């Protein structure tokens, strides 16, 4: 089953110095349980593609279908619900809420989705154990290392059992050893059935993917 189907998508950013074409006719499909890595130099359009797939941006032309639904036909509320329940986001800078504990950060999207307190606490315990941080549940992000914060961010992304995990340079702020741990965690998430689309400069992370795509100047080159 195809989770994401990107069809001839272009994205142009209007700039004062003239429009910038970030994506030029990109097409891509990601199937359920697939692990895809996108690599390429800075400014080649990797993150732009990830944002379009994640329904936080809209293409200038072309179409993106998520589980068969055209994102362009969804309202802002429907796109928000899709992001909340079917897509997990992992960011380079983690973006955990600093005033919430690790467990509360994982609970947040579940609470937003209307999951009851007992159920979401159980799911949070399960996810913290999954990422190996059950003993850090009550710690604030400021009390965690970079690697631990990213593991919590992955747990948060998995909270509502998404079909697709999007990761934008997830090891960009981590050392090699910690990056290795995160890569192992992605492998495990993927092995458990979640499709992953990861944008990375890190060859060690990209090599774990079942399919690697290289981009340059807004196009897929291989």
């Amino acid at each position, binding site marked *: 089953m195809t989770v994401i189907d990107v069809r001839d998508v272009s994205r142009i950013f209007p700039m004062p110095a003239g429009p910038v074409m970030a994506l030029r006719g990109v097409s891509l499909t990601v199937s359920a349980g697939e692990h895809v890595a996108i690599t390429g130099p800075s400014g080649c359009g990797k993150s732009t593609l990830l*944002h379009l797939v994640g329904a936080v941006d809209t293409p200038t032309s072309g179409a993106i279908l998520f589980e068969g639904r055209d994102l362009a036909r969804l309202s802002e509320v429907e796109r928000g619900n899709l992001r909340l329940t079917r897509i997990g986001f992992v960011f380079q*800078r983690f973006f955990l*809420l600093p005033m919430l504990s690790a467990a*509360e950060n994982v609970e947040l999207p579940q609470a937003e989705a209307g999951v009851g307190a007992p159920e979401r606490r159980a799911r949070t315990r399960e996810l913290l154990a999954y990422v190996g941080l059950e003993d850090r549940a009550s710690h604030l992000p400021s009390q965690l290392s970079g690697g631990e914060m990213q593991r919590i961010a992955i747990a948060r992304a998995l909270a509502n059992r998404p079909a697709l995990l999007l990761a934008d340079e997830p090891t960009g702020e981590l050392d090699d050893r910690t990056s290795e741990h995160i890569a192992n965690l992605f492998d495990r998430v993927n092995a458990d059935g979640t499709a992953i689309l990861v944008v990375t400069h890190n060859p060690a992370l990209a090599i774990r993917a079942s399919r690697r795509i290289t981009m340059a100047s807004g196009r897929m080159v291989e």
Partner: protein
Amino acid sequence: MTSLLLASRTVRRYRAQTVLAIVGVAVIGALLFDMLLLSRGLLLSFSDLLGRAGFDIRIVGGSGLAARLPIEGSASLIEAIRALPEVERVGAIRIQGATIGSPGKRPAAVTVIGATDAAEGAWTLVSGADLGSATAPCPLLVGRGLASALGVSPGSILELSIRPPAIRSVVPPVACQVVGVARFAFGASSDDTVATTLDAFHRANGEADPGDADLIVIASRPDAGSARAVAAIAAIRPGVRAYSNDQVVEQFNRNGFAYFRQISFVLSSLTMVFAFMLVATLLTVSVNQRLGEIAALRAIGIRRGSIASMLLWESALLVGAGGLLALPLGEALAIGLDRILRQMPGLPEQLHFFVFETRALIVHITVFVVTAIAAAAYPVWLTARLPIAETLRREVVG
């Protein structure tokens, strides 16, 4: 996990901004609260003073309440009013300048009140006996300040000479016995007031008959009410200047206190603009500091409404905490300011500028709720329009 929890954690996270906002709002709120107390304080206090005397209708001789002219034919008018079924009590009062002093000592200038028994109520007895129970031919109630200054107490003898201090008179002073010490409802703290019976008053004044009263005070029967009693009085003597307490208060409200209302309205509005600007600025700064965080929240599916609700709660917490703190602060400030303002010469001792009323509290809370919502409006708008992808990109590049 509620928006309130997120908001409370956020305000704790930005401690310096939170303290600044709460203290700022508390100070501004205290000023607002004082303005609200001041806007109606004098009126309430004045109304309370009128009511405390136990009369709800006053007849004056002049064209207005401020004028003090004798009421022509007051004796027959009082008799006619007393016979009305709507009326319970009628009292006559005369007021004049006088001098008073211990025999052989330099006399002091005072205001002397001559009142019938029924008019007792214009003062509160502090010690001794009231005029009605006195047997002396010229019983005297002395104001607290004057009693203290002259060193007199019940039983002391004072010489009363009813005439303005600078006017010579052939009428000899009358020896009066102090029967009690009183606090006069409309007496100034600096003003020396004494009261005696109406009989003693006109004898001390060298008059052959009691003369016309300067003021007639009337208590209507509770089942009739002041409005019906005023109408009945007007029917027996057309053109009589009879005013119920409500009419007196209304007249002062229109003429005497309009300035206070206008000043307090302008100052209240200004203070709330400052509160709005302070909270709106701090919230906007706080939101700008965490745009990346908010964009990430939107990216993971947190709804606009949830973020708006969180910001509204943040505003409510800041404004609410400041607004609550403003109440004791404002009350303390009001007590201090009231003490200063009441030192103005000639003001009735029991008149207050700042008077607490539930209405002021309700207005205070309402204004603060509106301010909290208004202050959150711009940050909410900012986050609602936040371009998620662009903000995330900027955060990474930054």
